[in-house]
């Protein structure tokens, strides 16, 4: 069973210039953030979306979370269509957005989590223990009574993960989760993410960090300018490139690939540069990695 299915999804953002645009030079038209993207994530697997800034990684996560709805194609989460069954999807998906400020600054971490737990329909009987569990899991137990306005970027990021985990989601979305973490914290974060998978959670993580991709991925999709450049499932001895077509069928050969081995850092780098056609000496701002 696939937890996430993208079937030929296109997402455009329209630019509507000001009424008197001759006063300025605002661009008009549309940006195609994703173009006919098809991908799937089998239940319990970790998919890493790897790509430079502006490649459509966050848009992909927003489409899964129902923050956005597709212009063409369809997104299904555990069989529920995000457009038709948004409520069902929202109960299954936890999203740790990259926006660090998406909390109530004058509430403590515990108060913030308690508030979101109510809105996530966590019952009163379970709520206290659930909040403590997630604070503990993300290493914030000692900071539970601190106003989040006093948090560092890394603490915000961990609190975002704690919030996403509150509903014990079937699908967890992490948008550049270690962007603000120091190297030591990042190294400790990746095994924690892998541990979540052992409980059956499906993970979709965006990054432009090769090391992170290598540490977490069962499967890597390289996105570039809104298109899937390549996709590979990494397993015991398997490194097969498969076409990005319709993955909704569980009979697709990719689904048979074992997923209990992580790719090496070199494998990830080679795969990425092969997919994008960039050399490691490509201009820094072009690869943005």
């Amino acid at each position, binding site marked *: 069973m696939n937890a996430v299915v993208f079937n030929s999804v296109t997402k455009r953002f329209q630019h509507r210039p000001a009424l008197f645009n001759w006063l300025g030079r605002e661009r008009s038209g549309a940006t195609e953030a994703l173009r006919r993207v098809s991908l799937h994530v089998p239940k319990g697997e970790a998919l890493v979306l790897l790509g430079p800034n502006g490649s459509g990684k966050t848009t992909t996560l927003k489409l899964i979370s129902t923050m956005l*709805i597709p212009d063409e194609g369809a997104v299904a989460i555990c069989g529920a269509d995000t457009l038709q069954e948004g409520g069902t999807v929202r109960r299954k998906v936890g999203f740790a*957005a990259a926006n660090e400020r998406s909390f109530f600054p004058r509430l403590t971490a515990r108060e913030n989590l308690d508030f979101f737990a109510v*809105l996530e329909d966590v019952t009163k009987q379970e709520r206290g223990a659930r909040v403590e569990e997630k604070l503990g899991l993300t290493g914030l137990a000692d900071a539970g009574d601190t106003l989040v306005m006093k948090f560092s970027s890394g603490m915000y990021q961990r609190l975002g993960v704690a919030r996403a985990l509150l509903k014990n989601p079937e699908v967890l979305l992490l948008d550049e989760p270690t962007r603000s973490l120091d190297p030591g914290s990042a190294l400790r974060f990746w095994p924690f993410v892998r541990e979540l998978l052992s409980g059956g959670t499906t993970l979709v993580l965006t990054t432009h960090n090769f090391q992170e991709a290598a540490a977490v991925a069962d499967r890597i999709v390289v996105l570039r300018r809104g298109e899937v450049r390549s996709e590979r499932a990494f397993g015991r001895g398997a490194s097969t490139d498969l076409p990005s077509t319709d993955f909704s069928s569980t009979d697709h050969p990719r689904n048979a690939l074992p997923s209990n081995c992580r790719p090496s850092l070199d494998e990830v780098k080679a795969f990425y540069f092969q997919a994008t056609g960039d050399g490691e000496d490509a201009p820094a701002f072009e690869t943005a990695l």
Partner: protein
Amino acid sequence: MIRVSLSEKLAAIVRRDVLTTIRYRNGFLLSAVGVLAEVVAFRYMARAIGPSFRPEGVDYFPFLLVGSGFYTFLITGVQAFLSTVQEAQQTGTLEVLLTTATPAPVLIFLSAFSAFAGKLANLVLFLAVGLLLFRVPLLHPNLLGVGLIFVLSLAVVLALGVFAAALQVAVQKGSAVIWLLGSVWFLTGTVFPVSALPLPLRWAAWSIPVTHSLTGMRGALLLGKSTSELAPEILWLSAAALVLIPASLGFFSRVLGRGRREGTLSAY
């Protein structure tokens, strides 16, 4: 499957708003001082105008106190709710809130309710200071009438708040609703009676819900009018609430869908 009741969700939202308010320590104290200063200013304004001016059959000070207090409550409630939505857009909280298991219209309506609950404390303080400090006699107030007018007025302005929020999400200019409400204040009978206006403006005043809220509230609280005497205001406000609440929620759901399509939920 609903596992957490609406009242529990409302309590959580009110708690969030109360904690946020009291943790802006200086702002909280300044608001209280502001209420006191306004009441004192109204008292001396009424004294300067003199005892012969008795609009709608009551002394000018209680007329001003109830009119201005209730009007401020209604308008600042809409404003507070709009600010909550604007802040949520700016911090990115809005997008996150809209991906929770709580449906967006429910969430937005409960948030609006909480914003008004916060302003209710201001209103109670305002009236209590005015009535107790300056010993305004309340002769047989119709408490049932006060309650009815209050609840119906709240329903109408909650709907206006949701309209403002929808406009904010749609075109990032929810403040247009505040501007519109603020610009017609002189028609609503806040500081002078509607009867002082020329006939065409009296018709315009009649079409504004807040006018009926103020007339009804003064009638019930200061003149002790019976519920049947308050019937015109009660009927007008009921009809407005019945039309505006579903219309505002429908409009909000529509702009939310558009925001999700265009990716503008957090645009501000």
